[in-house]
């Protein structure tokens, strides 16, 4: 989780990713952020997030994103 937060904070240092739950709805993360994130996550966690998982539910909070990563890791 800590690594994920580090990645997120690098993208937007001004946001508190521990508490923010509307990253997509409030347009904090745009489409460029998302794919940069996915590339970094792939690098860091060795997990490939497929395109159809790019939905607001998975990216609205760091928590949701982390559970996605765990789920994909599990399926592997």
């Amino acid at each position, binding site marked *: 989780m800590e690594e994920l937060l580090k990645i997120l904070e690098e993208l937007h240092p001004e946001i508190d990713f521990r508490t923010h739950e509307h990253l997509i709805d409030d347009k904090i993360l745009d489409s460029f952020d998302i794919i940069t994130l996915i*590339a970094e996550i*792939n690098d860091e966690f060795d997990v*490939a997030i497929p395109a*159809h998982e790019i939905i607001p539910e998975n990216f609205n909070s760091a928590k949701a994103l982390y559970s996605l990563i765990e789920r994909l890791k599990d399926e592997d």
Partner: protein
Amino acid sequence: MLFTSYSFIFFLIILILLYYLVPKRMQWKLLLLGSFVFYYFSGWSNLVYISVTIVSTYFAGLKIDELNRRQSAYLKENREKLTKDEKKLYKEKTKAKQWKWLLACLIFNLGILAVVKYTNFAIANINSILSIFRMTELSFVNIILPMGISFYTFKTMGYIIDVYRGKYEPERNIGKLALFVSFFPQLIQGPISRYDDLSQTLYQEHSFDPKTFSYGFERVLWGYFKKLVIADRIVAAVLTITKNPDTYDGVYVFVGMVFYAIQLYADFTGGIDITIGIAQMLGIEVAENFIRPFFSKSIAEYWRRWHITMGTWFRDYIFYPLSVCKPMLNLSKFSRKHLGENIGKRVPVYVSTLVVWFATGIWHGSSWNFIVWGLLNGVIILISQELEPLYSKFHEKVKIGDTFGFRLFQVVRTFLLMSSLRILDCYRDVGVSFRMFFSMFTRPNFRVLFDGSLLKLGLNVHDYIVLALGVILMISFSLVQRRGSVREMLSHKPVVLRYSVYIALFFTVLVFGAYGIGFDSNQFIYNQF
């Protein structure tokens, strides 16, 4: 049929009447019949093209679903017997088979689109190469472009990709799928609906509801106002300027680009208003395609507000899949290692962006000016992305970010930027477009604005007055709309006022519309897509 033809209005009246007279369970079937009749009037060969797409996609969808069912049954049956790895292998095999069906469907249908739309473009380019070697050139083919093929093909391909991704089950009723693909109000210029969105209301039974019906009608009326009173009127001046670039250079180019912005906005948003309004009159909800795009403060924001369904289609079906696919991730890792963190992490963004904007450009038209236009959009978006940190620093020092003046500056800047890019659309030739653009700065013929030359472009004083009032009305409407639905606000006003507004709007279209003898009913600009 064009939206602005007498035959379409006649067709629409009859369809709506029948729609509320037939048994409710027949309504969607009536729409399917109506859509095919509508499409038939634009050429019977159109029906062949769209039927082929419907049938091929229908079967691909069923096949993919069948593989899913087999997989579930197999895994359930052998839950105890198989190891985790065996299950994983089986799933991968199923996925691979499904992928083959998806690919076949995509290649087939996008292939039809490519051949029909881009053959002559390819031939033109091949000929340029052949002429260098003085070889005989190929002759152009005469293929009639089925109306709306770019729109309905994308709509349908979105559906089959979603089915492949498991987003929803395929439509088992081929008639219903046919209606989704060919729903007539969307055949001309979209919006590019998603199946899970449109199917919510497309097949349902609809009773006549006076409120939604009149809301729909009012929206249609507003659409015709923009289309007939503004777009079809101002087009005369735009054509004069753009068809004679060397005569109308300098300030004329600026005039042309602003007028074209007005024309395109009124024509496209007007047409979509008619589309969504008609659907609403039928009790069907169609997604919005524009949200006051000229109020955008940046190019990125503009593309979230203009032709929204196209933007999201490219994002969900090309941009995201491309940027998160294995090869791209590997490329990203590779470049990070060899070209450094900074460049490395930009690679997926840059490559995907440029690919998407190339595709967007070529989707708009089969000629180089559209491709250049698309790529320029992409490049400018990337540049503004890069300049972000600089902007933030600036706004930290100089606190003008929230002032009305600065926001107005951003809006005007974005408007001028997008209008400038659209010059490539006006002049159809890359060289001419750039030459005309630069002539704005090199040929200061400002007196053209004051010496009556503007009255020689095909518009007289009366036309300009109507246009000015019309543009003011459109702007006011959008300003009010920021607070909520205008129709909703009007419905709370006294009855007499409300109906007077709509009656006045009706007569404005009837009297001031640029239609009939003396005006050429202009094709919607996006019609041949």
